[in-house]
Structures are given as C-alpha cells and as structure tokens.
C-alpha cells in the first residue's frame, strides 16, 4: 500500500481550507478540528484522527422538528407511501426493509429493490467526512469517515438527498420534482421560516434545505440516546453478566476476537461516545455473495464499495480499495435482521461465526464457489487475510470456539438502546 497511495502534500493547504471543508461540509463538527496536511487525490489528509468523542454543535430545535416530520412523511415519495422511515424505522433502530427481501429494501415502486442492506442511522452524527490519516509508524495513509458504506457523501445533509431522488428508493428523480412535492405536502411556510423566502421555488435551494432539516433530525439526541445496558455499565450503574463480561474480553483481546481493532470501544471510559464500536475506517472482509439479490443476477455485477469513491476522488490506484466498506457501528446490532453490506447473513451469531471461521473453514461460507466470490477475481487480493481471527489457514483451529462466539453475541446484545430492548423486537421475522 505504500506505493499505491502517493500523498499529494500541498504546502498551501492549511487551516483555512480545513475550515472550508470540515466547517461548511459538516456543521456538526465544532472547532478543534485536525489540520489538513495534504491530500490523496481530492480527499484531505488530516494531521490527526477525528475523534468520535468530540464536541458537537447541537442542531437547531426547529430544524430537528421539521426534519423529524420530513423523515416520517410518506407523502414525499412517488408514488406516495414511502418515507425515510420506511427503510430506517425508528422502531427498529432506524433500519427496515420496506417490504423488500433477501437483505435489501423495497422502494416506493415495490418491484425496485435496493442493492445494500439498509444501515442503521443511530449514532451517525459522529461520522466525520471522508479523510485520510497516517500515523508516523504506519506505512501508508488510510481512509476514514464518509457517509454511505462507500464513503461517497460527506454530510448527512447531502446523504439525505440521495434517497429522495433515487429511482429505487423514493423515486422523485429530480430536484424540481422534489421541490414541487415538498410544496404540495404543505411545507412551504415552515421551509421559508427556517431557510428563507422562496426556498421551495428554487429546486437547488429546496433540496439543500430538505437535507439540512433531515440532518438536524439525524443529529438529534433521539438517534443517540446512549442508554444501552453497556452505556449504563460504562457509567457504573449496571453490571454485565459473567458471560457478557467474557464476551467483552474476547471482543477486545487481540489474539481472540480482536473486534475492537476496528469496532472501537473504550471500556473504561465513562463517556459512551468513546465507544461507538467503529473507528469509521474501511475494511474488505470478503463476505459471501448474496445470490438472492436481483442486483446480483448477472455474474458480472459487483458492488465494489469504496473504490468507486476512490475513482471519483482521483485516488491513485483506486482499484486497491475495491471491496472495502466502512466499518459500521455495532450499537443496536442485535436489533438488526440482516448483516453485512449485502445482507447475506440472517443472524448475528452467523455474522460473528463468519469472522471466526471464514479462513479456517471457507467451504462453510463459500460452498463450491471461490472464496471472496462477491468480488471479481482480480480484486480478491484486496480482502483482509491478516487480521486476527481472519488470518488462519484452512483447517487450522479457529481463534474463537463456539462458546466464545456465544459469549461475543451475548456481549453485543448489551449494545441495544433501551427503546429496542423489549424481547418482542428480536422476534421479528427475517426478510
């Protein structure tokens, strides 16, 4: 990787540019942002990691209220009947399938299915825009942040606009149609009060305002309550069971689960934001192809993840990033019904077991297909085969046994926000 990332260091790039990039693009990011010290293609390289536990600017309450209405409004799609919540249901940790199947969601036109497992939106307010960082001991800079699993969008405001227009989601297709739909739904007065006169008469401004409203809601405390049992454990108000404690130890141990090397946790910090269970980094795991997806009907169709963003942003040797997807938070992971970017797994235990035995028993995961079969053959070398527990030879003893896996799953169950902790939630049928 040393050779494939040539950092275009620019002496002219400095604090002013950082303010222009981070500040404007991410209003949620307050001061004390790391300096820009160079670029990889068009992506900034920062002097430091953007920490999750950083001061965030609270979104304006009026915008939060408007954003919540927009988020739940099923009149905005074409045809009507689909809202943001249809695929990101607040009752299901802001994830759902809207009548979809096999791990992907349906759109407002029900025959149209998405291509990825709808992510949970909880705790997304901490996600910084896409950037690179290189520690002095590291051989090359590595990417972090960015919305969508391929990091192609830098702000929640911009992210929120995409599904509104996307053909397989809310299907409005154009900013003009979106502005008209917002006016028809009676939002004009509220938008003008918050974003200025005539805002819904200008499609570009209308879409920007729509995004800002949704962004405010997604940044609100409703999506980041930090009230799971694990949070209470961090605050010293609750205990984990011995099995959960063991799961946490396995999660952190570099010789066992090693999960914390990407799903960051600060188990001794009373500040839960240090434990978002993601470092916002990228990983190529080589999960099995989900052959049930319509998007995969053609053998040549592949979701390549980060490398599409890498190409768009002119990173050198962009193909080196094919197969990489952003590490999601594991908060509320036990509420989810499908796992991995392509929704190929139907239980949390299956997902955890994949990590434990992908390399030791590849036949159990790929069957007669080649390993890493969701990537073109030429790109399978991008998959991580060196991190514990993914690094062992076929036939070797896995780093985790079945009891370890159970303990890990038990621990992950402690990351569920209180509102989802009711037993009925887990019993929902798998789409």
């Amino acid at each position, binding site marked *: *990787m*040393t050779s*494939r990332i040539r950092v275009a260091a620019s002496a002219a790039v400095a604090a002013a540019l950082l303010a222009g990039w981070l500040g404007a693009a991410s209003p949620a990011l307050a001061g004390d942002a*790391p300096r820009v010290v160079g670029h990889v293609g068009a992506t900034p390289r920062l*002097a*430091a*990691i953007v*920490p*999750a*536990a950083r001061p965030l600017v609270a979104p304006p309450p009026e915008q939060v209220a408007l954003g919540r209405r927009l988020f739940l409004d099923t009149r905005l799609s074409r045809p009507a009947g689909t809202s943001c919540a249809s695929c990101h249901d607040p009752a299901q940790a802001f994830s759902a399938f809207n009548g979809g199947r096999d791990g992907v969601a349906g759109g407002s036109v029900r025959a149209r299915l998405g291509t990825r497992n709808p992510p949970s939106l909880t705790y997304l307010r901490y996600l910084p825009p896409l950037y690179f*960082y290189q*520690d*002095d*001991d*590291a*051989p*090359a800079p590595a990417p972090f942040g960015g919305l969508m699993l391929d990091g192609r969008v830098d702000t929640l405001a911009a992210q929120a606009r995409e599904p509104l227009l996307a053909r397989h989601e809310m299907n409005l297709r154009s900013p003009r149609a979106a502005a008209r739909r917002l006016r028809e739904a009676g939002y004009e007065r509220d938008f003008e009060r918050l974003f200025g006169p005539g805002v819904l008469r200008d499609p570009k401004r209308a879409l920007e305002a729509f995004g800002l409203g949704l962004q405010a809601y997604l940044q609100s405390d409703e999506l980041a309550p930090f009230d799971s049992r694990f949070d209470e454990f961090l605050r010293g108000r609750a205990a984990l069971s011995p099995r959960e404690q063991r799961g946490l*130890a396995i999660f*952190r*141990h*570099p*010789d066992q689960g090693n999960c914390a*090397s990407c799903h960051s946790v*600060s*188990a*001794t*910090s*009373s*500040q839960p934001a*240090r434990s978002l269970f993601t470092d916002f980094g990228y*990983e*190529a795991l080589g999960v099995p192809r989900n052959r049930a997806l319509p998007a995969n009907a053609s053998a040549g169709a592949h979701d390549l993840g980060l490398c599409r963003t890498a190409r768009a942003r002119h990173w050198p040797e962009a193909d*080196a990033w094919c*197969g*990489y997807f952003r590490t999601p938070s594991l908060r509320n992971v036990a509420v989810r019904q499908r796992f991995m970017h392509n929704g190929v797994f139907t239980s949390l235990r299956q997902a955890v077991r994949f990590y434990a035995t992908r390399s030791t028993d590849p036949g159990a995961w790929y069957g007669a297909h080649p390993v890493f079969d969701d990537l073109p053959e030429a790109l399978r*070398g*991008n*998959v*991580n*085969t*060196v*991190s*514990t527990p993914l*690094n*062992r*030879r076929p036939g*070797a*003893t896995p*780093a985790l046994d079945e009891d370890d896996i159970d303990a890990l799953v038990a621990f992950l169950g402690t990351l569920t926000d209180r509102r989802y902790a009711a037993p009925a939630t887990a019993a929902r049928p798998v789409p």
Partner: protein
Amino acid sequence: MSHSLARSVPLLRARPALLALMTLGAIAILASCGGDGADDARGPGVAAADARLKAAWVEVGANGQTIVRAVTAAADCPAIVIDGVSFPMTLRAAAGTAAQRTTASDAADSKPSEFPVNTCESRPAAGTASVRVGGRALPLPQAQPRRIAVLADTGCRMKKADNAYQACNDATAWPFATIAATVASMRPDLVVHIGDYHYRENACPQDVAGCKDSPWGYGWDTWEADLFRPAAPLLAAAPWVMARGNHEECARAGQGWMRFLDTRAYGAGLSCDSPANDNTANFSDPYAVPLGRDTQIVIFDSAKAGTAPFGASDFKFPIYQAQFRQVAALVADGSKTSLFANHHPILAFAPIAGGAPAPGNIGLQAVMRTLHPVAYYPEGVKIALHGHVHDFQALSFASAHPATFVTGNGGDNVDVNLPDPFPAGLTPAPGVVLERITHTNTFGFMMMERDTGADAPWLYKAYTRDGKLLTTCVPAGSKIACDKTGFLAP
C-alpha cells in the same frame, strides 16, 4: 535548556582533582559509618539518598563497557560500591526542566519536559566482580552470556493524533510489565532492547480510566511509567543493551533517551533540548558489544530513518552512509559472528490489511546499496534484529542475506499479522529472495539461548508474554531454520 545541567556537567568533568577529593570524602563518610562500604549505605545522609533512588541499572556500551546508571531525586548522586569499595557516582545529567520545544505533537498538546531527578553514572573497569548502588546489587555483564532476551516497542500508547489511549493500567491491554517479569524469571544474562521505550506522548482524557492519571509528555515521570517501573525486575536481573527507536528521536522522547539511556557522554549539544541541535543529536555512531568470545552485536541508531523513502540528496543519507561504513569496520573481524540490531526493519516486512506486506525501510536500503550493492550488509553480519513493526518475524533467505528477526511485540498495540501462507515472490528488498518466514502478532519476546558447550550455536526462541515457547530457530551461517513456518498461533 536546563541552566543547572549546562553548568554542572562541565564542572565535574573539568576538575578531576575536585572529583578525587569528593571520592575520598565519600569513602571517608561511609567508612566512618562503621562498614566496609560494601553493604547498604548507612548514616542519615546516605540513607536519605537511598530512599530517593528511583532506578539503578547496568548498560553495556561499546566494546562491552559496563555503564552503571542511577536516577535519583536526591540532590547528590548516590554512592556506588565496586568490589566492596565505595565511590560517588558521577553526575551525568542534572535535574532540570528545559523550555518547551517543538515536538511531534501540536504545541497545545506538548509541555516542557520535567526531569526532577539527577542521572548519575559510573563506568567500572573490566573485570569488576560486584556493583551495588543504594543497597541494590546490580547485574554485571557475563563474559560468556548464555541467555539473551530481545524485545522492543514496549511502551503504552497515549497519542492524541491517533485517538489511541492504550489501557496502561490493564496488564492484558499493555503487557510490558508481564513480559518483563516473565523474562526476568528466565534469568537472562543480558537484555537487548531494540527501541521504542516511550509512548505516553499526550494526556490521557480524564474520563478514560484505562490510562487515568498517567503521566504524559516526555519527562521523567513518563519514562518511569513506561520503562523503569514496569521493567524494574528485568533491570535488576540483567544488564541491558539499549538501541534507539523512532520514539526516542529528539522531537519525541529524545530528551529522556539522552539523559538516561544513550551510552555517550551527555552534554547540551546532545540533550535534544534545542531543536537547533536535532540534526546532530538524532544520530549516533554504531558500536559493537561482545556477546562472549565468538559473537558480537552491532547497535545502530536509526531513530530518524522514518517511513518515507529518502535519497542521496537528503541530509540523512551521507550520515547513515558513513555509519554503515563504520559497521563494516566493526564486523570485519571474521573470527566473530556479528549480529546487527537497529530499530527499523531492513530486510523484513510491514503487514498491511488488505494488501501485500510493505518492504523494509527503503531509505536505509538505498544507503546500504551504495556500499554493498547486492548484499546490503557487510559480509560479517550474519543475523539482523529489529523492532518497529509490532509483531514477531523470523526470516531466512535463499539469497545471501542475513537472516532477520523482528521482535516488536513487546507491549505497545500490536500490528495485524502477515499473511499465511506468505505470498510467493514477495521480497523485503530488491534482489532479496525469501526462503522461509515464521511470524505472529501475539505479545511476547525472543530469547537467544546457547548451551554451555564450546561453540554451541545460539538458538533463537520466540515466547509469548507468559513464557509459552512458540518456535525455536537454529542458525547456520546467515540462515536460520525455525521448527515452525508461517503464522504461530499463541
């Protein structure tokens, strides 16, 4: 820069007559306490000094020079009892606080390095049989060492830029104290540390109990926390050979390195207190330490080698080039097996998740090729030892290049593993052909061991933090054969 430091060191060095008087005076004081000088210090003044003794250890310098160092909070250096005779130790670096300098961190996350301790030194003559400082018997170099521990990268990472706060208070997360105790229990004759002792660069956030109340910055308190306290059993068990890592360059923990560990004489120009002197103080000449009659280890300072390639136009290039010429001279004696130790791997790999492992240090390779275009190393070097990459690697080459060990798994957060099986055709440097590689990223250390018989070979054994043997490697010339290949499961 510390004014007291600038004054006191020249004062002692410039006045041998005064030193002699002080020595005689100290002997008189100890003698007057009724002892022969060989036992624990007695008397009010000496007892107070002992209580304030923070650390005492033995280093081995060039040509096997025994260097006794002590760190004390007392105003005066403690006495050293050499073969039953007491002498005052010489002040090496006086207590002081240098003005805040530029560091690897932002100025807001840096502070002046406080050293409220005197560093003292004594260099007993060859053949010394016993040394005591503050009542502690210190281990001396063995003429024929049989067990040599090798470790590196041992400190506890607290670095704001990385958002990394290793749980220094948790032996599972930061196992250096465990490793040091394990090694000490194996009764080594010598310890070779290949750099990166200090990692507590920035403040631990108040809400993180894992490193709460840890000292930070580059002063004595951080050195005590990262090295002298956790390593105390091992410092008491054996003399150490200290190589310098990139964490000990001047903009990082260089000030402490110079005060405590560098084998050279201390002085303002080598204090790392002023960035104006960095281009001198960040480099030191290589030296050889004998490991018995037939083996020696050459210690090379690569603190500023960095990760970015550098070419002949870089100011570092001729410096390292001259130093490698010195290495060639040091290993020219063909009657000895020469090991080479520096922090940055040269003919080894840096693992990368989702990519081919990166080669060894390209800048150093470029320098070495100018002197030895094919072999990289001078002919006398048979084995190379490194740290920096936080794993264990044992590499043997089909080409004529020294077998190489990396032992950077000594306590700081480990790196990812190397791939297993290792991809065919990968090379750590142009022209180098890998034959076998054995590796793991579990925490641990290496032990060089040899039987008591004459000409017995050194065996290179990798252990886990708790002393579980992972592999044994047998050398044959510049090659090694390990009893396991590929990834070593802990």
